[in-house]
C-alpha cells in the first residue's frame, strides 16, 4: 500500500515588495552605469545620459504623464532655459508646442524638471543650477532636481555651489529671491551623495539651509522615490519606503 506522504506542501513566500523594489533600482543603476562605460565622447555621453534617464522614468509612469525635454513659457513670454527632462500632465494640459520629445509647456503643466549631467564639475554645476533657477522663475510649483552620473567630490561640489551663489546674488541684487529657486534635490550617483533642504531649518525659504550627505541606499533609488512620489502615483505608494542617508558631511 502506498504510504501517504507526510511532507508538507511548500509554502509560497509572501511578496516582498521591498526586495522587489530594491532589485529594480539596482537594475536601473546598472543600466545607467553600463551605458556610461562604453561611451567616451562627451557630447554623446551627455545625450545618452539624458535619454537613458528619460527612458528609466518613462518605464514607471502611466500614460497620463509625458516625459520630454524643453522649456516652460508663460503667457507673458517669460521663458525658462531648456531643461533635460520635463515630466508633465498630458491629461490636464496640452503642450504649447511639441515636436517628438521636445516640448514647450505652460506653467503648472510640468510637475518635475530634471537637469541631467554626466559629470558635474564647476561649469556644469553652474549651468544646472541656473537652469533650475530659470524653471522656478517661470513656474514656482515645479519640482527642480539635478541628477548627475558622476562628478567632483562632495567637498568640491559644495565650494562650487557657494561660488555660484555669490555670483547669483550679485546678479539679482534688486529683488533677490534667495534660495527659493534652488533645486529641491541634487543627486550624484557615482560620488554617492545628495543635497537636500535641512529638515530642522526654521529660517524662511529664502534663507533655507541645505545639507549634503552620502546615500546609504542607491542614489537612483532616492531619485526615483522623489520623482514617483511627487507625481502622486498612489498605487506605487506601498512600494515606497524611507531611503536612508549617511551622516551629514556638509552644510550650506
Amino acid at each position, binding site marked *: 500500500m502506498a504510504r501517504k506522504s507526510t511532507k508538507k506542501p511548500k509554502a509560497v513566500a509572501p511578496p516582498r515588495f521591498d526586495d522587489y523594489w530594491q532589485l529594480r533600482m539596482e537594475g536601473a543603476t546598472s543600466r545607467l552605469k553600463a551605458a556610461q562605460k562604453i561611451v567616451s565622447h562627451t557630447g554623446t555621453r551627455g545625450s545618452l545620459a539624458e535619454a537613458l534617464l528619460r527612458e528609466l522614468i518613462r518605464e514607471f509612469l502611466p500614460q497620463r504623464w509625458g516625459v520630454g525635454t524643453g522649456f516652460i513659457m508663460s503667457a507673458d513670454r517669460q521663458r525658462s532655459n531648456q531643461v533635460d527632462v520635463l515630466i508633465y500632465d498630458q491629461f490636464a494640459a496640452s503642450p504649447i508646442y511639441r515636436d517628438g520629445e521636445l516640448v514647450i509647456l505652460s506653467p503648472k503643466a510640468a510637475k518635475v524638471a530634471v537637469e541631467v549631467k554626466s559629470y558635474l564639475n564647476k561649469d556644469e554645476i553652474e549651468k544646472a543650477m541656473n537652469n533650475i533657477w530659470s524653471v522656478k522663475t517661470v513656474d514656482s510649483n515645479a519640482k527642480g532636481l539635478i541628477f548627475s552620473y558622476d562628478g567632483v567630490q562632495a567637498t568640491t561640489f559644495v565650494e562650487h555651489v557657494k561660488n555660484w551663489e555669490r555670483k547669483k546674488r550679485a546678479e539679482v541684487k534688486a529683488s533677490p529671491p534667495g534660495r527659493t529657486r534652488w533645486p529641491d534635490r541634487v543627486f550624484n550617483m557615482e560620488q554617492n551623495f545628495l543635497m537636500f533642504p535641512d529638515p*530642522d531649518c526654521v529660517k524662511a525659504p529664502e534663507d533655507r539651509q541645505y545639507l549634503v550627505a552620502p546615500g546609504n541606499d542607491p542614489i537612483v533609488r532616492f531619485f526615483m522615490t522623489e520623482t514617483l*512620489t511627487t507625481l502622486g*502615483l498612489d498605487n506605487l505608494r*506601498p512600494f515606497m519606503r524611507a*531611503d536612508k542617508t549617511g*551622516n551629514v558631511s556638509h552644510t550650506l
Partner: protein
Amino acid sequence: MAKKKSVNVLEHDVFGDFEEFLKEVQRRPHIRLVKLDDQGLVEPARKGRAIIMQPRVRIVVTALDDKKPEILRWEKKWDVGSGVVTIDAFTGRGKCNDPTGKLTRAKVKAALEARSLLVSDGEWTKQSAEAALDG
C-alpha cells in the same frame, strides 16, 4: 484713474480636527464648494545622526469663503508605509489601515458630499483664491 484694489485673502488657522473644519464650513452656508487634494511628497527627517527621505501622503481640504474672504483648511499628513493613520472624524474609533491614502480620500469625500458640499480636485491657495476673486 485710481488703481483697482486687489483682494487680500486671509488664511484661517489650519484645523487640526476634521469635525471642527466641517462645523466651521457649515456655519458659513454660502460656502458650497470645497477642494480636496491628495498629494505625495518626500520630506527629509532626522533619524539619529543620519537623515531619511520619508515618503508621505498629504490630504488637504480647502474651502474659500468669498464673503470674508478667507481660506479654511484641514490637512493630514502621514508616512507612506507606516500603514496606520488616525482619522477620528468619521468613525470616532481612531485607527484605520491606509498606507496609500486612497481610503482616507474616499472617506473625506463622502463626508463632504453627505453635507451637500460640492467637491472638486485641487487646493485653494492664497494666490489662486486672490486670482479667482479678482476676476
